[in-house]
């Protein structure tokens, strides 16, 4: 039953993007939309939102939504009733289990599921079907941190909290472009820097927006992190910065680890050589670290997505254990998670190497969970982690798969193989809220419509172990249902109804909380027994709460381990000697580059949500590869041109961005585009499926690759009210527009083909066109009631500036004559300001407006903010604003 009141005022909920877990106030407008603001009372963000969060209102439309169950019928999917679809799923699983055993069934879950959904799915597969093969996209994101935490602390516990970022005197960011990927935390860091003078060190192969704010930037070679932190450990010992008392009383294994560290990085010079850094920078970092007790080392995918990710995490953790800088205000190693509920999934145990609620597969643990669930068929050993799971699907060992809320055909490494594997399944179920994505289009047999953000209700846990409510503020559209209920319905049809009698998300949560406390004498860190008796009202009203919160407690715990008490049998942390650092795959003459992958500022994952927002589309609208100018010159690549990037596993066609922020020999490509949004830009297809031996996390940032220039006769864009896809736009990217569809393309078609294409689109009465045949330029527009109905630009030049202009006019309700005349010029109408590429996504401020403000005397970010508001909300564009000011200054001095 929906507990949704359309007349309600602002609903406090939690952002569905990164792991910062910002509080959002959503005020529904009564017609399916809502206004969005930061929740000033939420302790993660205190009212601030980043560009992505601020644009959530642009992502709520029902366009492209899956609104009822669907079943495969040959090449097509047809609408089905819930009853038919659920029976199909239950019968399908039953058939596979009967023929091949429970291990032939797998669930692939998502860090975007709510904790309650995770719990129900994990319980069904591990507890009742009896297969351990539950894994999640968190494997691609956080698994190395989980493994590192468990190895060092005996449990997957983040020792600190966000407040430590406010209190630290030194913040070290390793493999984290927090300015773009965790903007609100990054703003907290910058505030600390400004107000308290904290120092910021950034360690990253790329000179990112984050690096630009650093006091010290270490442009580390890929895979150099273990060497750097081993060198640091050696330096700390040599300089008396180690807290011997802490090491003695609370840790084991220090001597062996120090010996291993000395073998890897005995001196600053050796460290610098191993990490590809200048000695002077390494020395400066070591001195700063040694001299600053209040240090937080925060890390993200640059550390995790590695075949030595677990060693990298622990190499960082070692430096904090050795100095006792853990669990103290302002001192901790700190993992920044990438998904809104990766942490919730870890708490539930929705990973193949966990059973449930921070319990593994020891006999005692299996027995305990079996009794709690009353689940005689419970899985008794570890299952297959994501990469192995898809390999097993490819080999035909797993026959039935249920994917919930994620897009593995895009995001897994060697994604072409993963996608091909999906077509081999006997039963392939997807619950999601879109009608089409690469995973669904890989041949899903059953589609189950899940509720989306804004409709569903439950809890998520953010990077600092803080449990927050996601609350519904929109009615559930069509026949969409919460995932936990869908799981329960399937369970009931398989004969497990007794164990899934949940009437509400609160029911699920209470059971989850009770399991965490069940026979928990304090040996398990995750214990939220204090929330196991929440009434429905109390659950609805739940304020953001740290875990653990044990029975009888009213307040969670901020920090761990200042006094030891680790979750190992002897209560001591473990130093674990790392392997000698080496990247798994070597470059070669055929694949001489290292391909790094990652996020961009204004998109998230495979764009199913952010891809709907016109505002977010404007920052970096199409897939690209970044390369150093010298490498570009050698490869015959030009900025704005195109390149084929290939690895042993696949290829992509990407726009070329030449930049000195990139190290020589390395490429960077963002992960967001898929076949749904672009023609050949699934970067996952390029990534090698080599994994960390402990965490199973793939090395997504160092695949050997080659890059070759590709030329097209023309590039351009097409803006239309209905989605169009000209067949001869060989390279195409969808771009969100207000009230329409954008397509950026490159093509080898002649102008006549384009002219015929437009002519075939029907009525030409209110049409305009522009030709410069000698220059290969063709532009056409159709109008309807003084509004642009269609706009096509084809030419040999990069059309980005014209795209921004034309888009601005396309999105207008009606055009003046002057604006209409300006449309095909690709320039702003007389008197109007040209915006340029959007820099501040929150207020839609473009680069040209910013340059103009600087030219008119704005000399600081604050002055730009005062004039244009740019940078005054989420602040994630501030590095770009500073760059613009610096560029203007450099220009003046010349």
């Amino acid at each position, binding site marked *: 039953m929906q507990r949704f009141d359309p007349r309600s005022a602002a609903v406090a909920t939690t952002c569905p993007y990164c792991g910062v877990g910002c509080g959002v106030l959503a005020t529904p407008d009564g017609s399916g939309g809502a206004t969005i603001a930061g929740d000033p009372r939420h302790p993660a963000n205190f009212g601030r939102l980043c560009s992505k969060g601020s644009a959530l209102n642009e992502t709520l439309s029902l366009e492209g939504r899956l609104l009822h169950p669907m079943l495969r019928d040959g090449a097509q999917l047809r609408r089905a009733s819930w009853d038919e679809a659920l029976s199909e799923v239950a019968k399908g699983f039953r058939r596979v289990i009967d023929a091949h055993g429970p291990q032939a069934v797998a669930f692939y879950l998502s860090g975007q599921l709510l904790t309650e959904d995770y719990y129900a799915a994990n319980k069904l597969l591990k507890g009742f079907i009896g297969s351990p093969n539950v894994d999640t996209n968190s494997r691609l994101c956080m698994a190395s941190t989980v493994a590192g935490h468990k190895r060092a602390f005996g449990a997957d516990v983040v020792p600190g909290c966000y407040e430590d970022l406010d209190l630290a005197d030194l913040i070290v960011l390793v493999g984290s472009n927090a300015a773009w990927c965790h903007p609100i935390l990054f703003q907290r860091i910058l505030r600390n820097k400004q107000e308290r003078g904290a120092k910021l060190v950034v360690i990253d192969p790329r000179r990112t927006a984050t690096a630009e704010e650093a006091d010290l930037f270490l442009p580390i070679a890929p895979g150099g992190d273990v060497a750097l932190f081993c060198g640091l450990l050696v330096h700390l010992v040599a300089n008396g910065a180690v807290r011997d008392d802490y090491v003695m009383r609370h840790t084991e294994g220090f001597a062996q680890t120090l010996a291993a560290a000395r073998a890897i990085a005995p001196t600053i010079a050796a460290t610098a050589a191993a990490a590809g850094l200048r000695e002077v920078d390494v020395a400066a970092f070591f001195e700063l670290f040694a001299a600053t007790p209040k240090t937080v080392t925060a890390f993200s995918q640059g550390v995790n997505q590695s075949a030595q990710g677990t060693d990298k995490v622990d190499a960082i953790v070692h430096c904090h254990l050795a100095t006792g800088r853990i669990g103290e205000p302002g001192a901790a190693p700190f993992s920044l998670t990438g998904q809104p509920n990766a942490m919730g999934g870890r708490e539930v145990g929705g990973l193949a190497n966990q059973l449930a609620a921070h319990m593994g597969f020891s006999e005692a643990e299996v027995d305990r969970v079996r009794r709690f669930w009353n689940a005689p068929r419970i899985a008794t050993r570890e299952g297959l982690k994501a990469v192995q799971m898809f390999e097993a699907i490819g080999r035909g060992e797993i026959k039935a798969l249920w994917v919930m809320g994620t897009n593995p055909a895009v995001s897994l490494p060697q994604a072409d193989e993963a996608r091909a594997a999906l077509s081999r399944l006997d039963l392939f179920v997807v619950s999601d809220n879109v009608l089409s994505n690469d995973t669904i289009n890989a041949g899903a047999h059953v589609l189950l419509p899940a509720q989306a953000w804004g409709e569903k209700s439950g809890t998520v846990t953010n990077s600092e172990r803080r449990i927050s409510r996601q609350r519904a503020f929109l009615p559930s559209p069509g026949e969409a249902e919460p995932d936990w209920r869908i799981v329960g319905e399937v369970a009931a049809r398989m004969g497990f109804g007794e164990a899934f009698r949940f009437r509400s998300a609160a029911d699920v949560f209470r059971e989850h909380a009770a399991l965490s406390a069940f026979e928990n004498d304090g040996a398990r860190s995750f214990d939220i027994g204090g929330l196991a008796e929440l009434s429905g009202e109390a659950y609805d009203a739940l304020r953001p709460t740290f875990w653990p919160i044990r029975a009888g407690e009213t307040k969670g715990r901020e920090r761990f381990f200042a006094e030891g008490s680790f979750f190992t049998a002897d209560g001591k942390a473990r130093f674990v000697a790392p392997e000698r650092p080496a990247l798994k795959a070597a470059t070669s003459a055929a694949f001489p580059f290292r391909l790094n992958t990652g996020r961009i500022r204004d998109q998230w994952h495979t764009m199913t949500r952010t891809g709907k927002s016109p505002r977010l589309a404007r920052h970096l609208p199409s897939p690209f590869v970044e390369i150093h100018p010298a490498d570009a010159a050698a490869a015959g690549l030009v900025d704005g041109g195109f390149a084929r990037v290939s690895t042993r596993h696949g290829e992509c066609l990407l726009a070329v961005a030449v930049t000195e922020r990139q190290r020589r020999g390395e490429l960077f490509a963002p992960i967001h585009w898929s076949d749904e949004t672009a023609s050949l830009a699934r970067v996952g297809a390029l990534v090698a499926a080599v994994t960390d031996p402990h965490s199973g996390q793939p090395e997504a940032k160092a695949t050997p690759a080659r890059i070759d220039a590709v030329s097209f006769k023309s590039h351009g864009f097409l803006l239309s009210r209905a989605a169009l896809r000209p067949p001869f736009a060989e390279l195409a990217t969808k771009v969100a527009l207000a009230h329409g569809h954008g397509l950026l393309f490159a093509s080898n078609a002649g102008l006549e083909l384009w002219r015929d294409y437009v002519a075939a689109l029907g009525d*030409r*009465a*209110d*049409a*305009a*066109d*522009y*030709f*410069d*045949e*000698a*220059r290969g*330029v063709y532009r056409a527009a159709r*109008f309807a009631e003084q509004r642009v109905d269609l706009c096509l630009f084809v030419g040999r*030049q990069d059309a980005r500036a014209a795209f921004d202009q034309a888009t601005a006019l396309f999105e207008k309700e009606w055009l003046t*004559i002057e604006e*209409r*005349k*300006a449309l*095909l*010029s*690709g*320039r702003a109408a*007389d008197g109007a300001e040209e915006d340029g590429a959007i820099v501040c996504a929150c207020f839609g401020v473009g680069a040209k407006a910013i340059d103009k403000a600087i030219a008119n005397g704005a000399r600081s970010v604050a002055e730009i903010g005062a004039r244009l508001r740019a940078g005054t909300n989420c602040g994630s564009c501030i590095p770009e604003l500073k760059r613009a000011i610096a560029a203007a200054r450099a220009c003046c001095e010349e």
Partner: protein
Amino acid sequence: MSEPLVIIGNGMAAARLVEELAKRALGRYAIAVIGEEPRLAYNRVLLSSVLAGESEMADIELKPADWWRDRGVTLLYGRKARSVDLAEKRVTLESGESVFYSKLVFATGSRALRLPLPGAELRGVCVFRDGADVDMLKRMAAQRERIVVIGGGLLGLEAAYGLGKCGAKVTLVHVADRLMERQLDAPAAALLKQLIESKGIETLLEANTIRILGDGDVRGVELADGRRIAAEGVVFAAGIAPNSELARDAGIETQRGIVVDDQMTTNIDDVFALGECAQHRGVCYGLVEPAYEQARVLAARLSGEGDVYEGSVVSTNLKVSGVSVFSAGDFLGRDGGETISWRDQGLGLYKKLVIESGRLRGAVLVGDASAALWYLELIRSRADISQWRDALIFGRALCERKAA
């Protein structure tokens, strides 16, 4: 003592020549202007505006009477020159009077052609050339008569528009397959037809008039395909002919027009010609701008300065309100020029530019001719427009802002 300079013709060319001369050599010549029309020189280009009722004849006078007087000009208007005696340096008027000259200038202009069709002599058949024609056309139109305009060039379009504007039901018949075929390319002509028809003027193309019907008074016209169009009036607007007979009869070299050199001198010393009656390097211009350029060169010549006329880059500007049409230079891009075009059906706009070696060679504009003079200047100056190329057709403001 001033030299006597006689100008035969009291039109726009003559007026401009006097003006240019007065600037350079006021008092050197005693100027006499002989004009057939019984009024002060007026702006012939604006006759269509008088016909359309948008101006009065008095509004379009080029200069007031005292302007001529102040420059010592003897105006002999309403007087026709009958013959010229080159040996005696004398012009004889119809009245028998003689005017002696030291220097003689032919500025006799051109006349509308009357097609040699059966019925061309009927009452109600006229041309559109001078003030008298305008008076007659206005009377016809005021009676809401049906009028056929023969000729779809500049003159025919202006006549048709003017007649329509003052109440006539107008049919424009044109022998070619498009309007203004010498000044416009096919898309421009098609758009012009659409715009003209939207003003209530019926337009028939490939319509070859073979006969004017009637008995004393015009009753209609008959086309080669047998169609008949009922009308109470017919206007010939199918071309002009230079008025060169007077010169020819005097023994001056003429072909289509009076042949002049680059200083507007005929084959006879001290005898010059300019404007629509003159033929320069094989070309008789039917437009006012070349006449003005020629007036400047001739004035320099008569003032003893050296200036040379090397021909004009002609441009065509149709002055029909709400329908801007302009063309200039090599707008067809025949010899290897590159074409840029911009068409907006909904706005009734068509523009085409012809570019060669980074220079503007020709332009056609329909529906918005606001940039016409700028393009003409670029064509004439042969300025390098490479840096503006992709914005050029969208007008000066966009180009110059980009350059800034």
